[in-house]
């Protein structure tokens, strides 16, 4: 059921690192545990997601691939708690995540899950500092403002962002800067789980490699689920999971994934 593809791409340096990392994480606790997970938007249609069992260890960096409409984004929404499973269970960091109340899930997500979107999705009218501090605010952690500011500056340093951008509006930044700010926002609360949804789809090869190096560097020991339909990316990760193997029963549904939220709203 689990598909772990050892990297055999041209990125040999990443392979070596990933191999060591994979060996180390086998000893660790489970970060994500999915069992009998089913999700569908309408009862008439077959399930979008149908996963019997799937586990991701703490600190593991997983590459999740699949064609458009294969249910990648739906699975990420389920893991984030923005969608609730129709059947089955999701446990995150040893917590019965799918059994939590909406409020508890929101709080859990804010504190433990960092998300980097496909289009980085910064709130355009907020400054860089406000965008990142919003994540701190919603997490409601007891971190002092001084500590939070120090963490922010540390992250900016690591992401090679000048502190001058802090007061710039998000929509005034270049794409590269937006990428970095999105990563900073995802990591500001030290999440144990990092979900990255196709952030490199619009980047050329050089920019993609640069982005991946940066992401791997700052992600550290966080468990990471990285979604892309570009299989060439798998060399950066500990293992590769294909949606077609994870959720085989929905292979015949090709377009529902992208349309899913709209369909649910209509329902």
């Amino acid at each position, binding site marked *: 059921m689990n598909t772990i593809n050892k990297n055999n791409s041209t990125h040999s340096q990443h392979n070596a690192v990933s191999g060591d990392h994979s060996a180390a994480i086998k000893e660790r606790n489970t970060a994500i545990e999915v069992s009998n997970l089913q999700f569908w938007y309408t009862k008439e249609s077959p399930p979008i997601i149908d996963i019997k069992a799937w586990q991701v260890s703490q600190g593991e960096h997983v590459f999740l691939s699949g064609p458009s409409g294969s249910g990648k984004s739906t699975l990420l929404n389920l893991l984030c708690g*923005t969608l609730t499973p129709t059947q089955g269970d999701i446990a995150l960091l040893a917590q019965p995540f799918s059994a939590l109340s909406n409020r508890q899930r929101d709080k859990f997500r804010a504190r433990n899950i960092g*998300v980097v979107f496909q289009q980085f999705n910064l709130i355009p009218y907020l400054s860089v500092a406000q965008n990142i501090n919003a994540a701190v605010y919603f997490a409601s952690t007891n971190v002092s403002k001084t500590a939070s500011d120090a963490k922010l500056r540390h992250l900016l340093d690591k992401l090679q962002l000048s502190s001058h951008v802090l007061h710039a509006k998000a929509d005034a930044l270049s794409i590269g800067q937006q990428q970095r700010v999105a990563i900073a926002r995802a990591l500001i609360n030290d999440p144990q789980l990092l979900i990255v949804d196709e952030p490199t789809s619009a980047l050329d090869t050089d920019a993609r490699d640069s982005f991946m190096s940066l992401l791997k560097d700052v992600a550290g020991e966080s468990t990471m689920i990285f979604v892309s339909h570009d299989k060439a990316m798998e060399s950066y990760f500990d293992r590769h999971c294909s949606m077609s193997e994870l959720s085989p029963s929905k292979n015949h549904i090709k377009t529902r994934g992208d349309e*899913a*939220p709209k369909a649910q709203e209509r329902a």
Partner: protein
Amino acid sequence: MLSTIAIESLKRRKTTAILTLLSITISISLLLCVDIIRTQVKTSFTRTVSGVDLIVGAPSGQLNLLLSSVFNIGTPTKGIEFKSIAALQSNKQVSWLIPLSLGDTHRGFRVVGTTNSFFDHFKYGDMQSLEMAAGSAFTQPLSTVVGADIAKSLGYKVGDKIIISHGLGSVSFNNHDDHPFTISGIVKKTGTPVDKAVYVTLQGLEEAHTGSKHSPTSILGRKPADKAKEHEHEHEHEHDEHTKERAAYNSEAFTPESVSVVMLGLKHRVTALQLQYQINQSKKEPLMAILPGMALAELWQIMGNVESLLLGLSGLIVICALIGLATMLLATMRERYQEIAVLRTIGAGPFTLLLLIQIEAMLLTIVSAALSLGLVAGLMSALKPWLSSTYGLFLSSPLFGQSSIIIILLILGCTYLVSLFPAVAAYRRCLHAGLNAN
């Protein structure tokens, strides 16, 4: 943080936000203006007369008697005979009595025949006595005292002579030319109908009507005064002289055949109802006594319907503006779906987003209310002289009272309710907002 997001969000949509802000500001200002005018008119209205315990006249109607005696509007149907006045005067419960004789005019202003007791006992506002801006009360039978508005609009000063006309028209062909009255005093501005009335002695009024000449010695108990000589006094001595003259002239000594209305002041106010009953039941002459406070309340009730209507219309305008606010927020929801999804993913719960939309609506209304308060205060301050000179409306402090606070609170409550529509839309959207926000 939420308020920062709300403020930045509004700044992002500043054109629509400013237009909405203007719309709400104008509507709240309108409502506050109506409320202030209503409150001030009511205050002005109720302060027209105070300290008068009973008003007695011929049986007609409570309002008719009040309008004719206090507001100088209309005339009583019939007069009160002297014997009845004498009976009232001799009543042990009565402390003082002001006779009023109505029916004449001077260049469109009402002429009221009375005695000096009017200037001694009539009170307005919070028991404020009438004060003279210049001169004094009646100093001789053909004295007249004019209200502040008349003196200002007609340019009168103490010593000027005026002619009164028979009847109530502003233009009369029946002038009492042979009985010119000399202005002995000008009453300080009161903001009541007193400002627009000409007060003459009952004696002078009767002489003007009957054409007889008064015998000053018989009434005044002094030798005829040389009027020309009287007004040669220096200005600084004027008041003293008038006071002396007034002391010498006893306007109450004249006994008219009848008067239109009598105002009574009682020794003990608690006896007002008892005396009212006695007067109303009197079989000697059919009379009617009214309690001015009750009559004023009844009159205000009638006028109150109009102000309630105005207030209601203004309230509807505010509701329309608030619906406009909700529409603006709803219209921007589609462009905010991505933002909602992002906020949701970084940990904002549905209720947080509901709150965010409501904070935006509340911010707009609070700023509008603050702008309205400033605008109305400025407007009223600028219009104060015009309102007092044109409508006799004196704006008293504080301008914003309890009703203004209630109005603002109600508007905030309405804002909360109407903003629920876009807020619930955001909430519903939030429940389905996922990572693929684009």
